[in-house]
């Protein structure tokens, strides 16, 4: 018995990195509601960040394309619905769904469309980077989990405006 204990400890020691590594890729799935945003105002104009776009770049147009831009490139989405599997993640902002493969490969939806939504996702340790572009609008979300809350660092460049906000979401009950 005394001979087995050291062997067991050795096995546990060797397995520890694998366990820690498995814990390194969090799952962001769930429905998330905005809790707070930092900074609380848009530094460009001193106004609160808008929930639904308004930055221009096609987002002002009163059509499906404009509505899509307003949702996807919103400075401060009020809620996010995320569905994540081992190799894919879907982020829903309002009615707009963005799909990403978790392999740093570009995804074009729909394929061949000049104004297609182009998405790409890659891991940076426990943080997930989501890059998205549509028309002349570009954005990047860096997702991480902190104390059970979703923290999104959102860079958006749209319609001549370029903003960065850190948004904290809590899980909807």
């Amino acid at each position, binding site marked *: 018995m005394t001979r087995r204990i050291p062997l067991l400890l050795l096995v546990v*020691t*060797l397995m*520890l*990195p694998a366990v820690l590594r498995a814990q390194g890729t969090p799952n962001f799935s769930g429905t998330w509601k905005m809790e707070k945003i930092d900074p609380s105002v848009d530094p460009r104009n001193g106004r609160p960040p808008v929930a639904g776009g308004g930055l221009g770049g096609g987002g002002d147009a009163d059509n499906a394309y404009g509505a899509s831009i307003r949702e996807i490139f919103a400075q401060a989405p009020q809620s996010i619905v995320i569905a994540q599997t081992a190799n894919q993640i879907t982020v829903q902002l309002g009615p707009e769904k963005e799909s990403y493969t978790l392999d740093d490969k570009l995804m074009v939806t729909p394929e061949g469309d000049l104004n297609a939504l182009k998405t*790409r996702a890659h891991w940076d340790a426990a943080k997930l980077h989501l*890059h998205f*572009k549509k028309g002349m609008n*570009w954005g990047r979300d860096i997702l991480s989990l902190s104390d059970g809350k979703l923290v999104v660092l959102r860079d958006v*460049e749209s319609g001549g405006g370029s903003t960065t906000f850190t948004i904290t979401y809590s899980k909807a009950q």
Partner: protein
Amino acid sequence: MDKSTLLLLAVVLAVFGGSVAAGHPAWGTFTGIAIILLAAGLAAGTLPLKSQDYFDERIGPTQRISSSLITLSSAAIVAIYAAGYHRTSSAAHKFDSQTPQARGSTTVATVTPPPPPSPATKPGSSGPPAPASKKNNSRPATPRKGAPKKSGDSATSSAPSPASDKAAPDATATPAAAAKAAYKDGVYLGWGSCRHGDIEASVTIQDGKIASAVISQCLTRYSCNWIAPKPPAGALPDLPAQVVERQSAKVDYVSGATESSYAFADAVIAALAKATE
């Protein structure tokens, strides 16, 4: 565990420590020395000492338990270190490959102001070539498909434009860095990002050298023609061509497209990092 096994473990540790110290001079020196010291300690424990009899008398049968604990501790330390080493080795290689090419180094700090687009360069080829346009027009129309262009470097360095004056040190300084990084043949993709979007670079390595570099995906808000103008190139710098010319990710930064230049340089660095893995 008997003494011969301990000794063998010590030798393996010493070799491992030596390889870490030699393979990663930037950060591995102290780590390698620490491992070698651990190996030395382990080896010393296996050697017959004069005081062995004294300890045997004093400690008796517990000596074996103590050795087991030491062995187990050593094995645990080595296991944790080896796991961490394996986990971070790819990042270490990446940093190693980036170090000579990192932006902000002394040679890259010579940011090239873009030559003002002169009307003489735009009409292009029919008129007598002005010195400023000679640099860009001397580039082959399809530099991405050819071998590294070396004759163009001399033409570039002799051009009197500010761009060429500052690009010249990079062009002469990079072969040593390029020769150091032995790239594996193949086509490698890498992404770079900036506030204006993403750029994917595709770098082709042939015979260990950068044979071509192109922007395979331009997802920036603005056109990538600012950093990779289509022929005739005119006065704007052609960053993909610079990668081939300089055999390095050290490219000039284009005023008015600085962020995109960063993104492109990062994309090439990422691609070259894959070529050295």
